[in-house]
């Protein structure tokens, strides 16, 4: 495959966006779906071809293509350039593969929705921007994709724009992301100032060529990039938008807020690893943020009742893991977890969507239960996903999560053991709340009233039904159509076998993915003062793996106890506890932000812009103009006295002036 074809990978979905966006309204639904699937599928085929090309023997380790110059000013130059290396290949595979499956799923899920064409147009737009993001060869082009996926996310979160909660959630996502983008922008400015370029290859070459470069402004750039990544990947303190983003349709949550967009931050940190390796402080910050976010979000996820909220906080928590992996310079482990997480998290969301669809819009787990027999395919695929995320062997999550935990334990970071402990506790909590979800949804007595399905959503008994206004038919609990189940099955398969490419040598595997990513992260291994593990110890690795499995089993055990054998016990005991209320209200973070940031900003800008600018300047200038005109006209009105002699007097004066002007100009006197 020649590099020329790289341009088509993002452009094909963009074409799909153009077609569906312009004429999609008038096309029949099948045509809209067909267009979207076709262009996404073609892009996936191109990526597959690219894989083949680059995995062949003697294939180059990277491929790039550049366009005509984009910005050329003295002192700064940047092109539209794409570059593909092994990291990009993994990201491309995840995006196009999982993306295509989710497109297929959406054909069934959104079948009864209004704005079908709009959904697929935005979805294709998202694919375009995400592909630009991972293919970009410069910070600037990456930022274009970064902003673009933020836009697509806003459009898709607020897809049901007639609902206040949905459009507010979209705005919240966009504004919080903007704060991160601000950090990213500052990082780019600093990069230009110090390196004179934004191209990855040139910046990293300059850094590698100066081994003595450490800390200082590199830390500043790295920390600002971390701010950007925290916004996009929903880490503390900018994670607050992700739970609200569940207002969007479930396929959106699966694609954007689980598998792809939120991983952009991780990808960006991994891509800039050369920079981060020179700043141990920044790496430690990343690790601490990751670990804190992981356990914080896991705690909140313990007590959520909406099935999608549990998964949202789970996503934040798993992203914390990936961040932690980057923070201990275990970049390939983080990317490995990114890949497996894409598989099982997308599967979890899609299966949850299938559950919601089968219950005609019900999302509250307290009124689910006993669905195991009713929707078997969904049940089994979701079971695979739950075991995967809990980290049971031999599912995908075990290998990737374990790799991160091992790298954390063995790293040179002074906080290594503490971070590891936090990670292990979080793994236990993850297992617990995922099995809680599993038991509450599929086991036990049926707590829903089949006859009333779909009508509770109408009455607005709880917020955010999946399509309460357009899904009037509630024909009992029914399994989803094959177009929704097929992606579930494929993702379930991937969740089982996806981890085997990372089977470490300690457990008898070859850790292919680490070797695959070695060319990209090779410099990390040789960096001085690096935080990565110095040596490989198989015994230690096996021991830590055993600890992880034990913790996961404990989580399963407690969930079994509290939610299967004696359901309701926890609910009764803790409902009045202050701690429970604190956690159930998400530690009041949103309220804190509101009082500390939003309210002062609002009243300050109200005072400044409304009173000072609007009333004072805008109204004031209009009033002043009117006042001047009135005053002036009052004065000149005196000239209309009706008195001939005064007219004559003014005439004489005017004639004198004209004569003077004529004398000076045309007769050239003086």
């Amino acid at each position, binding site marked *: 495959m020649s590099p020329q074809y790289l341009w088509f990978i993002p452009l094909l979905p963009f074409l799909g966006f153009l077609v569906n966006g312009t004429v999609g309204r008038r096309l029949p639904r099948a045509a809209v779906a067909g267009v979207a699937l076709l262009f996404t599928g073609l892009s996936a085929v191109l990526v597959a071809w690219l894989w083949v090309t680059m995995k062949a023997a003697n294939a180059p380790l990277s491929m790039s293509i550049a366009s005509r110059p984009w910005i050329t000013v003295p002192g700064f130059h940047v092109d539209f350039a794409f570059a593909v290396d092994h990291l990009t290949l993994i990201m491309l595979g995840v995006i196009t593969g999982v993306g295509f499956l989710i497109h297929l799923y959406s054909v069934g899920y959104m079948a009864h929705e209004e704005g079908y064409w709009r959904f697929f147009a935005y979805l294709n737009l998202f694919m375009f921007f995400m592909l630009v993001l991972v293919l970009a060869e410069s910070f600037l082009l990456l930022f274009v994709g970064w902003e673009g996926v933020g836009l697509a996310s806003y459009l898709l979160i607020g897809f049901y724009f007639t609902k206040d909660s949905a459009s507010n959630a979209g705005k919240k996502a966009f504004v919080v992301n903007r704060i991160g983008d601000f950090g990213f922008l500052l990082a780019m400015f600093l990069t230009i100032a110090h390196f004179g370029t934004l191209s990855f290859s040139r910046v990293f070459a300059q850094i590698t060529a100066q081994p003595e470069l450490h800390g200082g402004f590199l830390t500043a750039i790295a920390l600002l990039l971390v701010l950007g990544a925290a916004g996009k990947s929903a880490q503390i303190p900018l994670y607050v938008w992700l739970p609200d983003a569940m207002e969007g349709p479930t396929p959106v949550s699966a694609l954007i807020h689980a598998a792809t967009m939120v991983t952009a931050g991780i990808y960006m940190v991994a891509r800039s690893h050369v920079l981060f390796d020179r700043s141990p402080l920044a790496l430690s910050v990343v690790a601490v943020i990751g670990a804190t976010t992981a356990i914080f979000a896991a705690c909140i996820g313990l007590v959520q009742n909406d099935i999608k909220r549990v998964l949202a906080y789970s996503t934040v928590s798993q992203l914390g893991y990936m961040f932690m992996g980057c923070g201990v310079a275990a970049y390939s482990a983080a990317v490995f977890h990114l890949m497996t997480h894409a598989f099982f998290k997308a599967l979890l969301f899609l299966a949850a969507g299938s559950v919601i669809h089968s219950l005609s819009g019900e999302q509250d787990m307290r009124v689910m239960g006993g669905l195991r027999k009713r929707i078997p395919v969904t049940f089994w695929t979701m079971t695979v996903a739950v075991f995967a995320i809990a980290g049971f062997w031999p599912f995908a999550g075990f290998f990737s999560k374990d790799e991160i935990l091992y790298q954390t334990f063995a790293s040179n970071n002074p906080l290594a053991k503490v971070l590891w402990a936090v990670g292990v506790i979080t793994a236990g909590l993850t297992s617990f709340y995922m099995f809680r979800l599993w038991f509450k949804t599929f086991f036990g007595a049926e707590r829903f009233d089949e006859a009333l399905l779909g009508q509770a959503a109408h009455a607005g008994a709880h917020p955010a039904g999946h399509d309460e206004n357009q899904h009037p038919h509630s024909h009992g609990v029914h399994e989803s159509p094959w177009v929704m189940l097929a992606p579930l099955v494929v993702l379930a398969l991937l969740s089982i076998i996806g981890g085997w490419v990372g089977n470490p040598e300690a457990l008898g595997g070859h850790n292919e993915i680490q070797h695959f990513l070695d060319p990209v992260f090779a410099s990390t291994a040789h960096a001085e003062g690096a935080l990565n593990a110095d040596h490989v110890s198989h015994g230690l690795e096996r021991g830590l793996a055993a600890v992880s499995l034990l913790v996961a089993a404990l989580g399963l055990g407690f969930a079994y106890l509290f939610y299967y054998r004696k359901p309701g016990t926890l609910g009764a005991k803790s409902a009045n506890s202050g701690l429970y209320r604190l956690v159930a209200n998400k530690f009041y973070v949103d309220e804190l932000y509101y009082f500390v940031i939003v309210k002062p900003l609002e009243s300050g800008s109200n005072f400044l812009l409304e009173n000072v600018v609007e009333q004072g300047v805008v109204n004031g200038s209009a009033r002043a103009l009117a006042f001047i005109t009135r005053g002036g006209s009052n004065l000149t009105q005196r000239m209309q006295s009706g008195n001939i002699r005064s007219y004559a007097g*003014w005439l*004489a004066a005017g004639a004198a002036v004209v004569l*003077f002007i004529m004398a000076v100009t045309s007769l050239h006197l003086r």
Partner: protein
Amino acid sequence: MQLVLFLIFAVLCVAGALNLLFQRHPINSALSLVVVMMSLAVIYWTLGAEFLAAAQVIVYAGAIMVLFVFVVMLLNAGEEERTTGSRAAYIAGIPGVAAILALLTYIFMHERTALGHATLGGSLNHTTSNITEISRVLFTELLLPFEVTSILILVAILGAVVLARKEQ
């Protein structure tokens, strides 16, 4: 010698004009204006415009001023009263007048040499008389304005008749 002639009649002109200004009864002003016009006729003659001098006496002094005097008599205009009037006329007008006078005088005196001298009579054209020349130009080159002017006079007559009619 021509200078003396000029000075005498110039002084007469100005004196008449000032008298027009300072007299309170309009009939005195009218008669002063007649003096001005007669002096101007003489000055025209010194500038070689014999026809115009004659026309000035016949038309201006003989017809127009007589018309003025008639109207003064008809309307029984008396002495002027002192009314307050407008201040703008004095405030804006007098400085304007002064400025105009100063400017014009300055311009003319500045270009004194460029303007040349006036020689007494007949200097326009030694062979033809003034009246021949005027009529030649008037009835060939400027025939159109001449005809238009006659229409103008017709219109003026009609206007005057209509305006001055008694209300029926």
